[in-house]
């Protein structure tokens, strides 16, 4: 059933042996390729597409990555993601969720600078807190008569319902929902950019899909109570995220805040559970997001490593220096902004339609205006890249051929899912 998990786990373990040899990267890519093949034949139908896409994105990440430990970690993240996506009972969900957190913490704890230490510590504390809260909720749930080895449902007592809500808070910690977003902006911006791509691109979407699958039936039964709460935090999250992302000089900070804003859009699916489109919406949004967000952070990684660019100002006239990379970056940014013919637009469109379908058109109006507002800062980056003059030719530090290949894989995903919606809707 979850052969892909075993493959990735085994490849992850064995890849440690291959450190310091040129075989590591091909080996990791082979592992991801094999798991792709096995996922194709043996995954649960409802998450199959997303697992395949996670593997494709991780393939691109490994292709891009030059750090050996990170390559191994990426394989483990893939394994945990598949476990989390495949989990059907509450217990397996909790275990997989915790292993993903643990691996994420280990991933960011490869500290090389002070900044990275700050990001890692914040992430560690947030994860520990989230774990504590999750177990608090879990114990309430069990005390109320919930069974761990079955899918989540609350029909026995009040305590169960309270327990589930507490567990939701733990998830909101991971999903960087306001007011639990404080750690994310710093962590994403300060740890290595390729790690941020894994955290904000891959881990976040995996958690959102898995928790939607687990929690949707519960939320559908508790609409009256849950909806006002989730709508409030979702709207605050997207608005705050977008406003904080405006006027950021540091590109990574801008992307981190935009990631918080996107979390706000994503949990809108949680209030639309009674709509038949909610599942398609969250799936589409996650697919779009995993491609564009990972790609954007990986571009930042290239910019930092090869051109020593961190800030918006240094990016001016970049299109004259490296037209291909500039074009790839701009496409991903336009997709994040929700410009059509790119996946970001259709993801948002289907997700927001689900919310309209659930009867909450005014929520969608606010979300859409937020999305339009976000164009301001993405368009500003593109303005720097294309409209401003190149002051000094940037020095070129490293070979980026495989990183560009990774970017091309990711941009293919963004473009494909921007035009062809059939796969997501299962036709």
């Amino acid at each position, binding site marked *: 059933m979850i052969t892909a998990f075993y493959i990735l786990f085994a490849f992850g373990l064995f890849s440690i042996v291959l450190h310091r040899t040129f075989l590591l990267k091909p080996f990791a890519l082979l592992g991801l390729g094999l798991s792709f093949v096995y996922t194709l034949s043996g995954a649960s139908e409802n998450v199959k597409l997303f697992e395949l896409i996670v593997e494709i994105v991780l393939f691109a990440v490994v292709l891009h990555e030059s750090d050996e430990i990170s390559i191994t970690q990426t394989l483990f993240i893939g394994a945990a993601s598949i476990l989390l996506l495949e989990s059907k009972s509450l217990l397996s969900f909790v275990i997989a969720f915790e292993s993903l957190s643990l691996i994420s913490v280990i991933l960011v704890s490869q500290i090389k600078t002070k900044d990275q230490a700050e990001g890692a510590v914040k992430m560690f504390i947030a994860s520990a807190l989230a774990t504590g809260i999750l177990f608090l909720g879990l114990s309430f749930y069990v005390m109320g008569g919930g069974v761990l080895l079955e899918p989540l449902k609350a029909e026995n007592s009040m305590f169960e319902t309270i327990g589930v809500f507490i567990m939701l808070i733990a998830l909101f910690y991971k999903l960087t929902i306001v007011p639990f977003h404080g750690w994310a902006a710093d962590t994403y911006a300060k740890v290595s950019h390729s790690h941020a791509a894994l955290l904000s691109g891959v881990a976040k979407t995996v958690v959102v899909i898995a928790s939607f699958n687990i929690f949707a039936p519960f939320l559908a039964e508790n609409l009256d109570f849950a909806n006002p709460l989730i709508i409030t935090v979702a709207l605050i999250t997207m608005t705050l995220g977008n406003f904080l992302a405006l006027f950021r000089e540091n590109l990574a900070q801008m992307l981190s805040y935009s990631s918080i804003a996107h979390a706000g859009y994503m949990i809108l699916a949680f209030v639309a559970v009674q709509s038949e489109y909610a599942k398609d919406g969250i799936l589409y949004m996650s697919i779009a997001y995993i491609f564009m967000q990972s790609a954007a952070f990986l571009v930042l990684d290239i910019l930092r490593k090869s051109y020593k660019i961190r800030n918006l100002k240094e990016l001016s006239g970049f299109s004259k220096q490296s037209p291909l990379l500039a*074009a790839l970056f701009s496409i991903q940014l336009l997709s994040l902004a929700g*410009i059509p013919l790119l996946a970001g637009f259709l993801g948002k469109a289907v997700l927001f*339609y689900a919310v309209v*379908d659930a009867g909450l058109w005014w929520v*969608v109006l606010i979300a*859409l205006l937020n999305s339009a507002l976000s*164009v*301001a800062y993405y368009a500003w980056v593109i303005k720097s890249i294309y409209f401003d003059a190149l002051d000094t030719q940037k020095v070129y530090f490293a070979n980026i051929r495989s990183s560009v290949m990774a970017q091309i894989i990711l941009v293919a995903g963004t473009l494909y899912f921007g035009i062809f919606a059939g796969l997501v809707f299962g036709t």
Partner: protein
Amino acid sequence: MSGIELIFTPIAVSAFLALFFRGDNALSKYVALAIFTYMLNFSIALFAQLPSEGYLQLGTFLNVEKFNFALTLQVDMLSSIMLTLTSILLILVALSSWSMKKQSLYFSLLIMFSGAIFGVFMSTNFLWFFIFWELTLVPMYFLVGIWGAERRVYAAVKFFLYTHVASMFILLAFFLIYKESGVFDMTLVKEGMLLSPVLIWWLLFIGFAVKMPIFPFHTWLPDAHVQAPAPVSVLLAGVLLKMGAYAMIRMVIIMLPETSQKYAWVILTLGLITMFYSAFMAIYETHLKKMVAYSSISHMGLVVVAISTLSYSGLSAALYEMIGHAFIIAPLFLIAGFFHSKTGSWQMEDMGGIMQKAPYVSAIFVLAGLGALGLPGTMGFVGELSILISSIKSFGLWMVIVALGSMLGAGYIIWTLRRVVYGEMSEVVKSTKFSMNTIEFIALAVFALFIILFGLFPNLLFEYINPAFSQFNLLGGAL
């Protein structure tokens, strides 16, 4: 011939050209011209195939059954006319930007724009319509931002944001329509299916009003028009604003006739305000291109007044005026840009007496100006007269105030001609050599030819325009 290749081929070709050819490589120029000519050929061929009732089906692609999300391409007389107008303008714009700098990227953006705009006029699925509607912003953003004048960045970002925010209202309206009617195709929606037509009407109206633009949502246009390079201003006025008017006619007036009748007074009032406000602004303006931009908005106000009649004659007049406006405002923009590039100034006081230096170009400027003020024998006259008649028919005799708008038009146009083309030759003009690229001049001459041809023989156009609305059920707008 299904039409889908006219949407996606240009987009793919433009990406290819932008990535592999740089600088002043002339290849994309010729590719652009070839594609636009093929588009014109395609659009003209459509007229022969159109059925007398309903739509000509071009095909359905990329069907997603669950979401009713399919790229349905179908055209009727209205969209065929828009397609023809667009492709003619695209060809002439390509010709008049023949010696543009950084040609390769410029023309590949034009090609991308052409694909998106054909998508807008051909697709009737709401979501695909919206996709192409928004996609037109991207090339426009780059065209204004890279080739524009001094404040191009401000203008480009403002244009992008302003119209994108407006589009969000449109998208929400589409979602509501789909939720309430279960139909995702604009040709199948009937007003009776909708539960909240008033809300949807307002969302759509605001969204399209920004694009047209209607007062008070017009503030992006003067900036974008002035900062954009002259050929791009032509595209903005001739294609982008027409896109707004087309959507307003198709999705507000035709799709929601009853609510439109209820709010006809809103459309009428805003149309009149737009017309008079921008006419007064144009009189006040000493910046040549801003004057042209305000005169363009003023003419769109006239179109809005015509639309608000909700009658067959009114909509036909609106469509005629849209075409006329495109052909008249284009040479004004192009020549204003030409004068600027030669004299280095936008201020009218720096010009004067250009007629003696550049008689042919100035003559076309005068002709287009006279068209804008509605001189008999030009397209402007026919457009304004038919709008006047149809609005008097619908709203009563007090609509003669529309004629007052034309008088204001005469005011600013004649005064501008006096200051720019005739009068004392200024120092700047004396020391400037006015010479124009032959190809660019040919484009201007074609515009001039159209202004006179369709002005003298309006039936050549009305023959096609009149049947465009006969298949729809219009209520006619009494106040």
